[in-house]
């Protein structure tokens, strides 16, 4: 069995609102391929382009430039059967655990539809078995879930059922867009654990999209930090979180409310995020950066600083002997 690959090639997205142009995503290239399977986090605040990136990867949104390649073929030109294969193998979990359920159907319905669609011809018993396996994979007891209605379940259970729905047809890639942001903090651990066990036990590659660096640090192997559509910093998760190089990543990490009395917020002042950014040339973080220099008005490139650690900041000169390709650093 070959591993599925999903590759972004210079993908960008431009939204036009009247005469105003918004660069939601500046050109980005990387692949999600995987052996061994990995969890890659895409982190950033609201408006950083992370959901745009997810929608493009899922083929729900057409990129303005560039291509999304699934097993080497452009997703927008896939034939019917190839597209079905893409749909089956690239699954999604969305943010809101309440919005995806139809309250009139039992939970079984949500799990059964994808099986019927992608594995037609399975017997009733085989379908049931697949559903039970998927539920067990996310740490739920099938006997407590099957036959119930959505309103009988908690938000945490529903979100785990969403993960189960995504994996019931054994995809190779999972795009999880803020899967825990609407779930109680005390239940997040269970869902994150389910994601990690998918990677370990089912070799699913996961793109984990979040604004919460605490959970990202716990589940993922590598991270891409987006700000206003551009990659600020990327690389190995422990390196980026433990020694962030870009001033924006530093601001993010320093703003995490760690549940730790030894690690309180510092007193560094950052310019107000409400200030309108100047669009066009230059570092996107320029107007808020405490360390800005005149040359920052020219757009910096994403360059390698250490093995498995990239940043796009003029404060840091690139190390020429290191690999600058984003994928190879993730």
């Amino acid at each position, binding site marked *: 069995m070959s591993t599925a690959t999903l590759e972004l090639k210079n993908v960008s997205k431009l939204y036009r609102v009247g005469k105003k142009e918004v660069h939601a995503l500046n050109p980005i290239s990387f692949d999600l391929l995987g052996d061994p399977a990995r969890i890659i986090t895409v982190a950033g*605040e*609201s408006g950083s382009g992370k959901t745009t990136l997810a929608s493009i990867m899922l083929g729900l949104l057409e990129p303005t430039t560039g291509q999304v390649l699934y097993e080497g073929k452009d997703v927008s030109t896939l034939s019917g059967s190839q597209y079905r294969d893409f749909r089956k193998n690239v699954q999604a979990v969305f943010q809101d655990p309440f919005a995806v359920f139809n309250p009139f159907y039992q939970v079984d319905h949500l799990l059964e539809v994808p099986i019927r669609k992608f594995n037609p011809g399975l017997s009733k018993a085989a379908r049931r078995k697949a559903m039970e396996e998927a539920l067990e994979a996310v740490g739920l007891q099938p006997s407590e879930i099957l036959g119930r209605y959505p309103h009988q379940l*908690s*938000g*945490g*259970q529903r979100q785990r059922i969403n993960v189960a729905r995504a994996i019931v047809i054994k995809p190779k890639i999972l795009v999880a867009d803020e899967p825990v942001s609407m779930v*109680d*903090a*005390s*239940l*997040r*651990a*269970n869902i*994150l*654990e389910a994601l*990690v066990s998918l990677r370990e036990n089912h070799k699913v590659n996961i793109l984990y999209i979040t*604004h*919460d*660096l*605490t*959970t990202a*640090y*716990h*589940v993922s192997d590598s991270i891409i930090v987006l700000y206003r559509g551009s990659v600020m910093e990327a690389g190995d998760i*422990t390196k980026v979180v433990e020694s962030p190089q870009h001033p924006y990543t530093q*601001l*993010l990490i320093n*703003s*995490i*409310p*760690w*549940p*730790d*009395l030894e*690690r*309180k*917020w510092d007193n560094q002042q*950052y310019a*107000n*995020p*409400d200030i309108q950014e100047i669009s066009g040339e230059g570092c996107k973080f320029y107007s808020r950066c405490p360390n800005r220099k005149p040359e920052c008005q020219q757009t910096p490139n994403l360059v390698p600083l250490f093995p498995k650690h990239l940043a796009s900041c003029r404060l840091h000169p690139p190390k020429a002997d290191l690999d600058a390709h984003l994928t190879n650093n993730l």
Partner: protein
Amino acid sequence: MEHLLDITGLTVSYYTDIGRAIALNQVDLRLKQGEKLGLVGESGSGKSTMGLAMMRMIKPPGKVEGGSVVIGGVDMLQLSDKEMLKRRLSTISYIPQGAMNSLNPVLKIKRQMIDAYRAHYPDHKLDQIMDLAHEAMRSVELPEHVLEMHPHELSGGMKQRVCIAIGILLRPQIIIADEPTSALDVVTQRQVIETLNRVQQKIGSALILIGHDMGLMAQSMDKVAVMYAGEIVEINDVQTVFTSPKHPYTQALISSLPRLQNRGEFRGIPGMAPSLYRLPSGCRFHPRCNQQQPQCQTTSPRKSVFEDEKYVTCHLYEAT
């Protein structure tokens, strides 16, 4: 020392078609002037109901069934509706969860502040009100021209700070902030919480921060009250809650937190919160408790009170 806020035996139920849900059961809470308390718990544990009950904003089918909310010697629950209207914002103010939905979209921020002020002091001069409005904007670090803007022109963080500015306009003695940052990203969240702390310090009021993010509590609160299924199971200073929590639920909550040191470890709390319609007998937490004892299934635990109004409700700490 005299307490600014003294809540005793507060009980709230919701009457619905399937029966009576006891959202708050005999809750006690005392706060001194200037104290900052975090009220934490899962969804449905009663933390928002508690905030609303203090404001007397419980609407049918909800009903306050008992207890008292005494602020500065006056029981809010005994006041007439008209008197209570005067107390809101001037004695106790409430900063709601969704700032985006709590401002009037067709009025300028300025108008909404003037309206709030005039509701309490109808005959004050406009100049005087505007001075206070400008001061409120300064204390939440928003530029004064925001007063001339409509809510849709502001970002989420700015709207939330406008709500804080309105909330402190009349210098209330108690500020209740109900998950003020749940829809904001980390950087904006930090900014809003720091703003809240600064204005609280400036006007010297007590602050109750409702939320489920223990990280925020560790960063900015003095005390933490942990709620479970409509009861406060533990109130303690933030130091004790994080380093040696007493109640088994608090212990489970603290050990489920993601920290820098325990990367890749996940410790969720097994089981799920009980339905408020069918509460377990005895201690409400006993089906999920890892230190369960025989009496937990049959008898409700009593409060074991420590110094400074801290307490835990658990059989493990009851004096024998």
